[in-house]
């Protein structure tokens, strides 16, 4: 065809590195941070993270960032400042006019013209600090009493939805027919194929007990896996079960610092490369991954569990009330799934001698003869 109509179609492929979006989920569980206050105070950690964010923004003109706080009672955006639900003439928070949001509040700070600070950095910084202050103010004693952990599932969902939105905004999808029409109308036009946004999520986690949110977190992990969004984990404190799986499944970096005081070093060395750069790097990652799942009935992390054949719920014991699955209510008898109790003391010799009939039929076919125990 090209040879006939003699007009060449130019497809300009952008060779430049795609911009990258970094979504940071900051676990702000007050319990855990208070516990860490002697080694790594939250304020210092926040400052370290701000430096890291600046480094990220500085490494690419189009790079962007989102920071989400995963608190005890809610998950919310620290940056960009969420637009209030009431319609406003200028709901755009990214232009730095954050001071308009909270002029009446005493704790908020406006972006001042500091000649020594790059303005975009100052914008991000101010927004994060303001929103964080608001978050801390809103934290009540009762919230802390209610739970020892953080709402990581919600925060992950927020991060994923933000990334999805940003990806759409970044490369508006035009339908193929439109492009074809354009090509006919103006064959000389240069078509730009959009470079997709490279996104990643970094979870700075300090809380344990995440098994409570096994299902929402697992769902988020699968969503991230599908969208090829690596989830990086910086685990400053707490047990590791669930998040290690998140990084492993999505190809992210998992770090449990031996020296949390060197936070900035960890952030810079292990987490700064964006997904594009990672293709040509060997990323740090711990060897063994704890793949165990949490059971649905007692939130225990199980080595061997029982799985409902209908809804795939995981249970830690074979004693289900009425042999019904707790989640979906279907009949689920796990009697057959349990293995025989080992008998280790030889029975008293019987008088009748057994004529070697045993040797003809030794052993069951599979160990434990169980149908659904799951090795997690």
């Amino acid at each position, binding site marked *: 065809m090209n040879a006939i109509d003699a007009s060449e179609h130019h497809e300009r492929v952008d060779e430049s590195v795609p911009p990258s979006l970094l979504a940071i989920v900051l676990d702000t569980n007050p319990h855990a941070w208070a516990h860490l206050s002697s080694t790594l105070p939250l304020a210092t950690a926040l400052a370290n993270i701000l430096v890291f964010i600046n480094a990220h923004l500085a490494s690419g003109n189009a790079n962007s960032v989102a920071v989400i706080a995963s608190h005890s009672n809610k998950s919310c955006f620290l940056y960009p400042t969420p637009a209030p639900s009431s319609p406003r003439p200028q709901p755009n928070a990214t232009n730095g006019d954050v001071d308009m949001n909270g002029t009446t509040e005493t704790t908020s700070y406006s972006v001042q013209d500091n000649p020594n600070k790059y303005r975009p950095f100052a914008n991000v*910084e101010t927004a994060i600090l303001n929103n964080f202050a608001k978050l801390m103010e809103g934290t009540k004693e009762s919230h802390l009493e209610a739970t*020892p952990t953080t709402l990581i599932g919600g925060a992950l969902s927020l991060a994923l939805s933000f990334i999805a939105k940003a990806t759409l905004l970044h490369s508006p999808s035009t339908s193929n027919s439109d492009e074809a029409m354009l090509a006919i109308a103006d064959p000389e036009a240069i078509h730009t194929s959009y470079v997709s946004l490279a996104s990643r999520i970094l979870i700075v986690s300090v809380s344990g007990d995440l098994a409570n949110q096994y299902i929402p977190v697992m769902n988020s992990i699968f969503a991230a896996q599908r969208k090829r969004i690596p989830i990086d984990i910086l685990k400053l404190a707490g047990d590791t079960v669930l998040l290690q799986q998140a990084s492993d499944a999505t190809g992210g970096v998992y770090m449990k610092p031996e*020296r949390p005081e060197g936070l900035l070093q960890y952030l810079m060395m292990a987490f700064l490369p964006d997904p594009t750069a990672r293709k040509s790097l060997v990323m740090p990652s711990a060897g063994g991954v704890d793949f165990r799942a949490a059971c*649905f009935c007692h939130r225990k992390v199980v080595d061997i569990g029982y799985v409902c054949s209908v809804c795939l719920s995981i249970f830690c014991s074979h004693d289900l009330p009425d042999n019904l699955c707790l989640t979906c209510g279907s009949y689920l008898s796990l009697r057959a799934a349990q293995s025989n109790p080992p*008998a280790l003391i030889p029975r008293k010799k019987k008088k009748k001698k057994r004529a070697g009939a045993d040797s003809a039929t030794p052993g069951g076919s599979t160990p434990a003869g169980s149908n659904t125990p799951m090795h997690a």
Partner: protein
Amino acid sequence: MSEAAAQYKKKDGKIIVSSDGLTVSWKANSDDLRVDVEIAAITNLQQTPATSAKASIKIVVQHPDQTENHTFTFTSAAARDDQQTITGVLRKCIEDAKTRSAAAAAIPAAATPTPTPVLDNVGASGAMTMAHTLVGAPKEKEDPFDDAKLLRDTALQQSLLNSNVALRERFDLALRDKPDTITLAQFSNQFWATRVPLLRSHAVQKSQGAGTYNVLSVVKPVLEQGVQTLNMSKEQIQLIFAQHPLVKRVYNENVPPMSERDFWSRFFHSRLVKKLKGERINDNIDPTDPKLDKYLDFNEAADAAPQLLVPSVPLFLDVEGNEQNHSQRLGNRPDHTMRLGSHEKVPILRTLNQMSEKMMAQVPPSDGADRHGPAGMDEETYKQVQLHDLERTADDNRVVLNIQDQSQFFSAGQGVHTSSSAATYAKRTPIQVLSVMQQQFQHISASQAQTGGINLQLAMGTEEESSSDEEESQANKKSKVGSRSSRRGATSQIVNTIKQRQRLGEEFLSSTPEQSRQLALQMGISGPVYDSLFITHNTTVEFLHYFWAVFYSGDAERANEVAKLMETLGKSLDRIKAVADTAEAERAAQIQATVKSNEEYTQRTGRKRRFDANNIKGGKNVVNHLMQPLTRAIGKAKHEYETALQAQMRQSKTETLNPV
């Protein structure tokens, strides 16, 4: 009706199952002693297992007033086969009788319920074994790749071992190291039980054979030193006869006068072979052969006809076929390349198609269609053909999932005190926690208010200027955030994990034994040490398999076996240790050699070389590191075993103290 030579009460005779399946009788050869048993009255049928010397069956009959049993021993040369056939027939008859009586019992209530006959395999001693085979269970169509069957087939296992070197090694080694209490049969059963899929694939592989091929195109006269020679195997000749009945006929009619050799060499140069191959006959070049040429006009269709298989597609479904099946356009006549007898046009296509057809006719149909069913109507086609639109809508058989609110499982009862970090969190009350947080945050925000944005460098706490002297004094007190030592610690951790990851990547890429050997060499493990590690690992894994199988069998009879296996696993640990010691010795020797060469160097040149023993890799630590997962697995097995054993000891003690 089936019969077999059998002894009854030491007398030779014949056991006969009547053709109507109602009675089984035995008749003596010499006198007219006779035993008749009504099949419906049989309650138990037992046979000696395949391992015993004698092949006999025992029939237990329940009469209203008494129970009698008859034992028949098969005497013919193929006694085992007789036993199998007779039991098979009897089993079937018993089944039939049972269903009949069940049907009969359903109508008049008066009929006495027949006891369910039970089939047992009886040990040579005559004691009952545990294995019961219910006669009532419908006998499935025999699966040639059934697990149990595969496990019994020692010939197959042997052939698999012979074809798979790695497996053979593993088998032999595990066999060598197995505890003596475990018999060969038990061991091999266990070994194969975990490898049934391997057996199955091997069985399938073995059952595959090459099909027939177009012989005429393969056999070619070869010109060797000016002499035409023809190399044909006996099979090829047979195949030619099978594929070309015409050649067979020609051969039959001509070979007595001609010699066989002469016949074939003439045949392969004749016009006839060209015709059979489908090549064009060129009247000018091709030599004529007065004897063979007369068969050129012979119509092959005459004897080919019965082989033709017309694929039967149900025509009322085959819309295109229906359109084509138009009487005025000659209907569904085969394509001209498929028709017999059209000699002139494209003979090669026609011949090849015909050839394929013949070959396909010999291949058993893979779909196993029932040839006696209605044409093209197997069960599946029938279901397809059914006009589903006219049927009533089927019941919705979806399983409705009623997912209950999962939050009840997860958030309920989650308080500060149930947390895994409860102890650490409990040190502070929520109020204290809040105040700590607020206080910390004041730091950062206060500075922000004054200077227009926080001073990040201050807030971060990194001290760039701190000298190493201060550093040390600090380390004694408390490591500060961002201090040099903590940064260094972080760097080394990250670099370590990067190295680890890189090695993992290499291991992942190199899955062949040779490459992993190279990797081992890099880690300072010599070839022989690596080999013995490899073997130890293999056998230990095998025993772990066995251990868990027996451990969870719950069979007290096998308790001794478990104990022995535990010992064997202990020995495996010793073996690992021995390997580690060898590696350590190797490393020591290497260190010594280096030290010696360094000394020589010093003597020669008067200069000292730096030497660090840590630079010599390998040794005990590396071996232990490599075997760590295995050691852990053995530890786990040991732990489980000991806990269970102790619990049971205690229990048995209490039982003996307080007899029930």
